């Protein structure tokens, strides 16, 4: 899948592929594959009209954006005016978005064509794609296995070639986890780099919107389109004019790449084998491999589940059924309810210090550990998910489900960035290499992802 996005953009610009044709082909592919994969839960009825508009501009030689003619799938927790933003929940099954999220405005301005809304775990609460009220999503790269979550539909759509690029969101791994299971590229940006205006909350202090693509170039391109300061938002980094796609390098000379023994402790040895050989390749590309200490990494997981639950409880209070949709507690699934009840419980006045604030202290510890490690190295590499995806429909316990998130949560707690590229396979199931970078260290992350992609 190396460089398919660059190739397609080139074909569109040269007139070898018309924008309308591109959209039509995608729609045909969705029609054919979606009944089995269930990656999309709604299609944009205006996609072809929008394609024609972009096409006209191209033919007239007018200035078109960086995404001109590419089809973009959007996770169902991002508002696209006129389409349903359901969060794959009965709560919002009839909610038609009343405005465009800031990232959607940017995608449109760049000539991207919103092709539809992708499936997801209900309210992004899940790591398997199975909690959607619209049914589970299959893994196109390992049929019969879960695609991971919560951005299950976005990752699966890319893996199945149903669209060119996708938007997802990542609160504790919801982009990186399904990217790993589906063998595609996914990036969770630094917290505050991408506007969240219009993203329906899971946990406000952890959520970030990020790109999915079949290749690193596509992810870099989509990220540079959606990233950057938005004055209409309070909690943002003051980052302007970011650019990644044109700066992609394919060597790692002079780069310090961190690894941690902690990863091996937490991860399935079969997965570690694939990761070890990937790290070897990075070394061959000129990277200096440095061991870093992350002694409390695994304690991030329970801390995360407390913090997230409190924020999610708060975020869902607006779903009271009075203004739109249905009252969330009346119609939501088990995992959503579980998080609401947990958040409600541990934010009680008498428990706040013991649970919520204590979890925020552990967050400080994890954050400082990662920051210290990232002073010694440019990036930290390792596995994305500690175990292989289970078979669809297989019952696993709540704690086994949460255990998928051990390795992705720390980046969210620390607010740093992280990207995933396919490292290899175990028994025919993709395994992703996770590259975590500093705050606003996306350029270094892309450099490692692209260098690996070029030789893999």
């Amino acid at each position, binding site marked *: 899948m190396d460089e398919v996005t660059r190739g397609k953009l080139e074909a569109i610009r040269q007139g070898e592929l018309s924008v309308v044709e591109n959209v039509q082909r995608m729609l045909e592919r969705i029609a054919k594959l979606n009944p089995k994969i269930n990656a999309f839960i709604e299609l944009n009825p205006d996609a072809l009209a929008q394609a024609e508009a972009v096409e006209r501009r191209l033919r007239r030689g007018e200035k078109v954006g960086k995404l001109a003619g590419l089809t973009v799938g959007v996770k169902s927790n991002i*508002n696209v005016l006129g389409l349903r933003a359901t969060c794959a929940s009965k709560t919002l099954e009839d909610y038609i978005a009343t405005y465009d999220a800031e990232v959607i405005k940017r995608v449109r301005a760049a000539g991207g064509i919103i092709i539809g809304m992708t499936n997801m775990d209900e309210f992004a609460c899940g790591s398997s794609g199975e909690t959607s009220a619209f049914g589970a999503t299959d893994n196109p790269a390992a049929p019969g296995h879960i695609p991971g979550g919560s951005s299950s539909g976005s990752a699966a759509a890319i893996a199945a070639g149903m669209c060119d690029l996708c938007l997802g969101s990542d609160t504790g791994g919801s982009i990186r986890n399904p990217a790993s299971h589906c063998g595609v590229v996914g990036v969770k940006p630094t917290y505050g780099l991408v506007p969240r205006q219009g*993203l329906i909350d899971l946990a*406000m*202090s952890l959520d970030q919107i990020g790109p999915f693509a079949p290749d690193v170039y596509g992810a870099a391109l989509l990220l540079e389109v959606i990233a950057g300061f938005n004055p209409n938002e*309070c909690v943002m980094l003051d980052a302007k004019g970011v650019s990644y796609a044109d700066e992609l390098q394919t060597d790692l000379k002079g780069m310090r790449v961190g690894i941690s023994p902690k990863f091996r402790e937490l991860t399935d040895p079969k997965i570690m084998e694939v990761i070890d050989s990937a790290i070897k390749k990075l070394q061959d590309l000129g990277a200096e491999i440095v061991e870093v200490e992350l002694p409390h990494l695994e304690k991030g997981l329970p801390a995360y589940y407390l913090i997230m639950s409190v*924020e999610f409880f708060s975020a869902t209070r*607006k779903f009271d059924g009075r203004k739109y949709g249905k009252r969330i507690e009346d119609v939501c699934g088990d995992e959503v309810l579980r998080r609401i009840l947990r958040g409600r419980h541990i934010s*009680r006045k008498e428990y706040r210090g013991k649970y919520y604030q204590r979890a925020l202290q552990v967050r400080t510890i994890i954050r400082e550990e990662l920051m210290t490690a990232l002073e010694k190295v440019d990036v930290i590499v390792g596995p994305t998910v500690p175990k292989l995806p289970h078979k669809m429909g297989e019952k696993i316990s709540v704690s086994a489900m949460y255990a998928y998130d051990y390795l992705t949560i720390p980046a969210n707690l620390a607010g740093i960035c992280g990207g995933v590229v396919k490292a290899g396979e175990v028994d025919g199931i993709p395994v992703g290499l996770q590259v975590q970078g500093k705050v606003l260290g996306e350029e270094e992350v892309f450099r490692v992802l692209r260098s690996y992609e070029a030789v893999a």
Partner: protein
Amino acid sequence: MKMLIGFEVHQQLSTGRKMYCDCPTNYQEVPPNTNICPICTGMPGSKPLPPNERAVDAAIEIALMLGCEIIADRIIYIQRKHYDYPDLPSGYQRTSLPIGLNGELQGVRIREVHLEEDPGQYDPTLGTVDFNRSGVPLVEIVTEPDMHSPEEARKFLRQLVRLLEYSGKVRPEAGGAMRTDTNISLEGGGRVEVKNINSVKGAYRAIKFEIMRQRAKLERGEAVTRETRAYLESQKITMPMRLKELEEDYRYIPDPDIFPLVIDQARIRRIKASMVEAPHLREQRLVKQYGIGPSVANVIASERELANLFEVVAREVDPKFVATWFRTKLKKILNYMKLRAEDVKFVPEQLIDLLKMIKSDEITPEQGELVLRELVKRPGDPHELLLQLGLVRVGRTELQAAVAEAIRTNPEVVKDYLAGKQEALHFLVGKVMQLTNMRADPREIIKLLRAELGREG
């Protein structure tokens, strides 16, 4: 019976935009659900804009005017206060940690001042909601329970209203009437909080009702339990609010979508530099600086613009004289015409000229009052107003003729006067005033009448 009364007062701040979005704040002037956007209606995925700086500064200024210590150089979180109510679009209200602490106004301690956002307007009887008001910035002022009678409580609220109006930072009374939650407890009973009070008068009535209700219970030997009640304006009574309609635990968390505030010394200095003097302090200063009585100072300080006008005029004319005129004449005329000092159109110089004319006996106080009334209605040079009103004093001859005329045409009254009835003289003075179109000095008329009648007698 000993009683304790305290308030939580909410007042809307005067801004062009709402606290966390760009919708306008003139919510009473538009149809329901017009000043709304995804942010102030709690649409899925909407995030607050950064807080409105003007509102933040206004709250700091009001805290300073109330003599609070400002929480400086420390993190002030904007918190989410969770509760379920139809007027709250997101299921929580954003409320800041205290901006100021430990103030004082006229003997009542101010516990804290902080920022809030207004919810929408819920009509509990009709079951309808209008979000036009949702997100309008509010300042909340919390007092200690330092008031001990309904009258004292009312007096405090009036003082507070005056202070807030003085600040110029709140929405005018006509629009954002003051809303207060009031807590009332009698000795031996639990603390009762009364919500849904929308005016000073309402607060007074609610407190009176509560005292009556609580006292009757205690006298019957029943317990007054700690509870929250709603004041029903239409019936002037309070009603218990059901437990379900109150959330016992607000589960406060810092709003993850809003960075906290840190008020630094530079900001405090800047606000102090342009801050208006609090009315209660100004009242005290007026007494000291101009040597006027406390009650007249209270009248003058009742409105900021009235006090401003006073201080300009008192620079040019004897302050005590000016003060008397402000209290007995100007304020009376303004009240009669339902005007506030800020609506007055004449320039201070015109008032200065007029008061000088009166003070120097160029015109009589009665004429002066007529000119003043005219000045308020149609501003102009007082000399010209005097002419236009035909108030230039009559000459000696004309006045004597008028006196003679009054005596000639009222022989019965003259007889009464000569028989010792003083009121008869006043009647004759009035007649002469009528005949001269009010252009004579009554004191001079009396002199002339006495001389004239004495001669006859």
